[in-house]
């Protein structure tokens, strides 16, 4: 996924769309909006980012899971199998992005990239709903996909690359 920080206005539509689509319990969220301010007045710069699980290639949550509930499916999406999860919290500790939370029912929950929609050819709810079309989703291995094209002509960054997780959400800057 690639997210254009110059187009994002921080409306939180993605957050609400996700909560609705995925029946996220009240008080929790799988994605969220971060506003990062650089500099001091009058030379201030604002960056708005829609953030979620980075579906890391080298996912620490998958490595530390004692039961194999956290796993990577074909296509690179990191998922949690609820009835394998014992709720030990190891994956929550291991995530540099704090993208996971403990569902009130006990298991650990997080962004699934709306795998149930994507596997049927759809788009994740957050991407589909975005009013500024700042999110691009697709197969990074396919050089002609929407997301690969978005990354071709722009500068981009990932969050906390020093954590060594090889995150798969790219922020166009």
């Amino acid at each position, binding site marked *: 996924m690639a997210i254009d920080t110059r187009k994002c206005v921080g409306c939180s539509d993605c957050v609400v769309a996700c909560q609705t689509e995925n029946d996220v319990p009240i008080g929790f969220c799988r994605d969220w909006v971060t*506003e990062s*301010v650089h500099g001091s007045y009058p030379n201030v710069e604002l960056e708005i980012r829609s953030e979620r699980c980075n579906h890391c290639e080298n996912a620490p949550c998958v490595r530390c899971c004692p039961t194999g509930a956290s796993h990577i499916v074909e296509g690179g999406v990191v998922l949690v199998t609820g009835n394998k999860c*014992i709720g030990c919290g190891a994956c929550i500790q291991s995530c540099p992005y704090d993208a996971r*939370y403990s569902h009130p029912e006990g298991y650990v929950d997080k962004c699934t990239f709306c795998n149930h929609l994507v596997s049927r050819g759809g788009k994740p709810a957050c991407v589909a709903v975005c009013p500024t079309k700042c999110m691009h989703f697709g197969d990074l291995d396919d050089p002609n996909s929407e997301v690969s094209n978005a990354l071709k002509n722009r500068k981009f960054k990932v969050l906390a690359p020093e954590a060594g997780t090889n995150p798969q959400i790219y922020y166009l800057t």
Partner: protein
Amino acid sequence: MKEELFISGRDIPNIDPFLNIWHWQIPIYLYLGGLAAGILFFAGIFTILGKEKEMSTTVKWAPFLVPGALVIGLLMLFLDLKHQLFFWRLYTTVRFESPMSWGAWVLMFITPLSFIYAATYLKEAVPSWKWKYSILESAERIAIQYRRALAWVLIVLAVILGIYTGILLSAFNARPLWNNSILGPLFLVSGLSTGTAVIMWMTKDHRERKIMSRIDLVLIIIELFFITHMIMGMLAGSSVQIAAAELFLGGQFTVSFWVFVIILGLVFPAVLEILELAGYKIPVAIPALLILFGGLVFRFIMVEAGQITRYLY
């Protein structure tokens, strides 16, 4: 000057503003695990050295505490789980990459073995004891016959258990305070030290106490050395690790760490032990209690402070 501010509309329980997903159960478990590892380690060592008579508390009586400590520790682990009915999933897979999987399996072996080890001395502790079934009588005979082999296995498992209590934390790259390679050995030494403290406190034999006191003194010195290394390593590390070290060097855990862990939990009992070895009369309960309390506080601080540290981006 450049400033950076983060504003987020997120407010998830136990995640925001600081991670607090592991509560009091985890430090208590880490403590009891270390303590059990310490007692079993020395029981095993002195069994192999053939010192059952000279070190009777170490070899025979202190290990009676171990099954209790491990069962309470396991109960704590279970209480901490959020999806408790699925705990058995731990034992349907072996995941070499996951320290928690290692720990679950080690506990699976060491807990029953600690019961068996203690049972081999039950008749000496309670002379009138009789096993209800004859099969248990013959099982006991076999266990006593292979006690030395059992001791070897227990030593190995105790070391793994002791180190694991530290590696459980240090394997998390996302929590810079925990993410240092000395934490495993540090927790092992701390666990061994709390084990010797229990033995020192229990024994009535002056010579045995003196031996354990000497061992403990060495362990405390090693522990102080490791803690110095840990903080030095973090200060020489990346910005997130420096921020983690600062929690103990002026940050919110400074007082609890230096007063309860370093001074009252390590330096003061070491001084008392030196004085006692020099011939002064000091009630053994004082250094023993201080070591046990210091070890407990150390684990509480590490678990709580570690969860506060994180990557900033």
